[in-house]
């Protein structure tokens, strides 16, 4: 296990994300409302470049929304650019299939520097 410096927090403001290469791994670094997350840049589905996808919200519709469409989780949902599979950045879970989950690498901010442990 080693720490890898990703860069200053100022370069990754809330709502931004970027793909970095650490050793031979491509990893997506996400700032969701000030909290950092690191996910592998590979989709569980057909191995597409997951973290090259867009970050957005998604829809919800249930008795709780009176069966009207609602826009929820703005900035928390990552969509794979290949086939549109949605993942919750904060948990790594696939929205369409909770049994599917991408791993999350430990990531933290120390003295204004974003550091990934790998």
């Amino acid at each position, binding site marked *: 296990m080693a720490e890898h410096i990703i860069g200053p927090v100022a370069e990754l403001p809330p709502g931004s994300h970027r793909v970095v290469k650490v050793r031979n791994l491509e990893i997506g670094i996400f700032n969701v409302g000030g909290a950092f997350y690191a996910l592998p840049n590979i989709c569980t*589905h057909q191995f597409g470049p997951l973290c090259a996808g867009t970050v957005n919200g*998604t829809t919800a519709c249930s008795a709780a929304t009176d069966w009207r469409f609602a826009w929820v989780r703005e900035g928390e949902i990552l969509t794979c650019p290949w*086939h549109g599979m949605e993942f919750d950045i904060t948990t790594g879970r696939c929205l*369409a*299939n909770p049994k599917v989950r991408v791993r999350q690498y430990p990531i933290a901010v120390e003295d204004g520097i974003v550091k990934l442990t790998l």
Partner: protein
Amino acid sequence: MVAAPGKRKTDDLIIVDADIHVNDTPAALTPYMTQPWRKSLEVMGGGTSYLNVPGFAPALKLDPPIPGGHPSRSVHTPAEMRQGLDELGIDLGVLFPDNLLLFAVLPNIEYATEISHAYNRWLVEEWLREDNGLYGAIVACPQNPHDSAREIARYAKEDKVVAVYLPTAGVHPLWGDRKYDPILGAAQAANLPVMLHSVTVVTPQFPYQLDQFENHWARQMLSHAFAMQANLVSLMHTGVPARFPELKVGFTEAGIAWVPYMIWRMDKYYNEYRRMIPFLEKRPSEYVRDRMWFATQPIEEPDDPRDLVATIKLYDPDGSRTLYASDWPHHDFDHPKGLLKLPMSPEMQRNIMGASALELFGIPAPVRK
């Protein structure tokens, strides 16, 4: 209950038939009609041919008659039905109509509503009064959903009414459209499963535009199968299983091999398009496993019967969502022996041949005399 003569291999097995048919001629329903539609049925009479009665079971029959083949059968009385089931070794059956298989294509709303009332009264009064192992599905009226909902509530407490039949041949829009919500809501409130049943039909409505095929063989390939697939998708795409969380849905007369194909396909595109159907909070296959049932007839007959059992297991590992159905007395009925010869576990066999249906329809297990 009348026991079938002789000892059978199936004597220890309860056999419930999820789909048998009564012959609902215009003459039979006439006494249950009010004017002026009673007049219409009087004009049609009783000697009309099966599934081909203008204004009642309107069908576009395109094929020239070819001598030979096997005769069509119809059943006109409960005693006749009981005898037929006894000969097949079937304990209990759920009655569906013959001619009203084409009910959804009737365009006159007031007339269709009246027919639905008459059929339901006729069914209950003439077929379901005796303790003869016959149960029934009342017909829903897609032409008049609010009236149909009241009709379902009216029959909710009838012991031998165990389902609501959703006429599927030619229905437009397909089941799942929100206009039918009152029907589905009433069925859910009455704790009655809804049963989709189609028939070969040529109409301008999706997916029944089968006029381009040269013969009935081809139309038979697609009519029931497309009907079930299209209506399953339609139910899913407006979130019926989420909006009616207690509703049980049965699919009849399309066999079962299409089910794994459709659940895999729905799941695959749920991955991609979940945001369009967010009311589905689970994968479509999970809703299917939870609350949808599939009747076997016309059962597929692969060369290796193990392939069929494996196919059922793809959507229903223990047989609890699969219902034996004969479709008696129709031309392509399945004898119980056609299912009993399949290599499956005793539990799976017990479920498919009867236990699944007893559970779905809330029918008490019959006591053998």
